[in-house]
């Protein structure tokens, strides 16, 4: 009898240990390090490390680079998350309508960017966007439009980088939406058709509400991912023309690994962690109950 109740815990323990060791423990360590002025010489010799309390947090509040990175991250989330959710949903709805071979081929076609290595993607897109020798500017020149500085103009660079990330991010979410769409019983759509509802009305009133949980899941995970936006600006512009595409993660990476300011970067990472946690909890609270018919 006692062994039976022990078994579930035995199954959960390995995953819990991994989560504690590589998820919770580093956050704890970062919290402790963020109260010190640890840098590379401090890492070599712990006696060089001094406790400075909330000094790092105060410095962060007065750092214009930090606020600019925060602003950039906010802009990326505001642009990227709706774009990905709407785009993935639209593509999934369209793919689901036709079940033929072309649709199945397209499904893998949309998924390929998500599984391709970021370095390969950055090389190709870097050359597509290149001002003098890129394909986009070449095509524009054929139509008589002058050179566009895709990755050098401070505002355009943000959108160019976000575009590559949106292109990459839709793949997985399309698959998730397709799976959720398959969970909607056909009887509901048939009933709606019998009542005289058209395609668009059916989609709006039957399909979308029943996709509620999938949309919520995609929104939450995409928001968390975009708050930690790193790959595309790092490989395409390394933080952008004069910090224009520096997101919070890139700011932290540069502070921690290029300037070796581990204490300062830890403080920043805790701030980012708090922001992500608060936004996620707010999203969870705002969610209404699932629609059931």
């Amino acid at each position, binding site marked *: 009898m006692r062994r039976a109740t022990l078994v579930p815990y035995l199954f959960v323990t390995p995953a819990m240990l991994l989560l504690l060791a590589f998820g919770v423990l580093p956050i704890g360590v970062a919290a402790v390090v963020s109260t010190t002025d640890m840098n590379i010489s401090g890492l070599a010799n712990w006696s060089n490390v001094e406790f400075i309390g909330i000094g790092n947090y105060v410095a962060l509040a007065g750092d214009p680079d930090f606020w600019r990175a925060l602003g950039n991250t906010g802009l990326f989330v505001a642009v990227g998350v709706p774009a990905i959710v709407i785009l993935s949903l639209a593509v999934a709805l369209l793919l689901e309508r036709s079940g033929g071979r072309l649709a199945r081929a397209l499904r893998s076609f949309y998924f390929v960017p998500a599984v391709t290595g970021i370095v390969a993607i950055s090389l190709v897109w870097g050359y597509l966007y290149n001002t*003098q020798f890129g394909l986009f500017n070449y095509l524009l020149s054929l139509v008589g439009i002058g*050179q566009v500085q895709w990755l050098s103009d401070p505002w355009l660079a943000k959108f160019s980088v976000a575009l590559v990330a949106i292109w990459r991010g839709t793949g997985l979410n399309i698959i998730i939406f397709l799976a959720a769409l398959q969970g909607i019983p056909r009887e509901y759509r048939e009933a709606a058709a019998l009542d005289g509802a058209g395609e668009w009305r059916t989609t709006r009133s039957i399909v979308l509400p029943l996709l509620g949980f999938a949309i919520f899941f995609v929104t939450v995970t995409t928001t968390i991912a975009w708050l930690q936006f790193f790959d595309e600006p790092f490989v395409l512009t390394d933080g952008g023309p004069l910090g224009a595409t520096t997101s919070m993660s890139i700011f932290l990476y540069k502070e921690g690994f290029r300037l*070796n300011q581990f204490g300062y970067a830890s403080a920043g990472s805790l701030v980012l962690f708090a922001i992500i946690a608060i936004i996620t909890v707010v999203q969870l609270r705002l969610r209404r109950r699932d629609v059931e018919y």
Partner: protein
Amino acid sequence: MKRSFTRTLAAVAAVGLAAGLAACSTGGGDGEADGPLTVWVMGDSSANFEQLVAPFTEETGQEVEVVAIPWDSIDERLTTAVASGSGPDLMQIGLSKLRTFADAGTLLSLDDHLADHPGLAADNFPDGVAEATQVGGATVSVPWVSDTRVLFYRSDILEENGIDAPPASWDELREVAATLAERGEGQYGYYIPQWDSPLPVIMTWDFGGDIIDADGNVDFDTPEFADAVDLYTGLYADGSVPTNSDFDQTQGFISGIAPMLVSGPYLARSIADAAPELDGKWNVAMVPGADEKTSLFAGSNMGIWHNTDQVDASLDLLEYLSSVEAQLSWFEINGELPAVSAALEDSSLQSDPLVAVYSQQLADSKVLPLVPNWDGQTGSDLLAALNAIVLTGADRAATLAELSAKTEGTSIG
């Protein structure tokens, strides 16, 4: 059932403990340990370096294990090695990172060993280089390969526009660049890489000044630096320089869009590989200083990890790498210029016309000041200030004042 379960568990635990204890035992109680020397080499492949040290292994029987480290992951590798306390035995250190390595306490001081290893003495290397790479007055590394910056120019394009010789001064270069930029829309005269932090320093040197004062503190408030900023901003104001950050310098040179630029020997190899048909249509010259043609002495040093347990073997390998034969062999295998003077003056090197210019330039080159963090901090702040002025039109006086404030107190001491 219960008893056999506990018994199996006890047996497994006992075996595991024994295996763990056996693995913990270390060998070699006497001074030096045995085993292969680990060398960190920068780059994507260890094959070339393995080829270089093969004769050393043959002669002394000492095995050498080479680990290739890509340039952009050196920061993380260093941090991990420092945090864990265990690093390689020898490692290649780019000069701009030397101070960071030394400050982290990762380098063994070589002063006590120089007497036993004459091949590592400062006079084997070009004047001033070995002293310039001391940190805090102590020798912690030995020059390994040298690198410099020279003027690359398309002689055919210059001739087509009536210019027979490369510019002999920065002012002349500015004029030539303006002429070449008039060739048409989208054509430029000169390329300034937006990531090139040594370039404004080279310009300052060529105007007869320096960016550090007599006490070793960084000082951007000098007339020579102001001249360099005039030149830098003037080239942009003339429209002679492309303003986009993703300009490809190799393609720009090959296609003729930017027919002049200051760069290193690596560019010569890239051009020769990508466009062999351009042979004879381009050349290199010393940087166009009017009075001083001083350029950058870059390259890498070799250092020994501070708590290596194979000090003597590492020193022997270091001496081998500093021998003239090894230096010339490395140039043949990998194309990097030697740092040892005797190797640089060797006739086999001097027969290559490009190398003749490089070694002439190396004789008049200076090391970037060994401030705590040139790449991540001082150099990066300098670039940010200059790029803000030329790319976003920031106010020059205010931006330079901010730069001076940011770099206040940075010193090589």
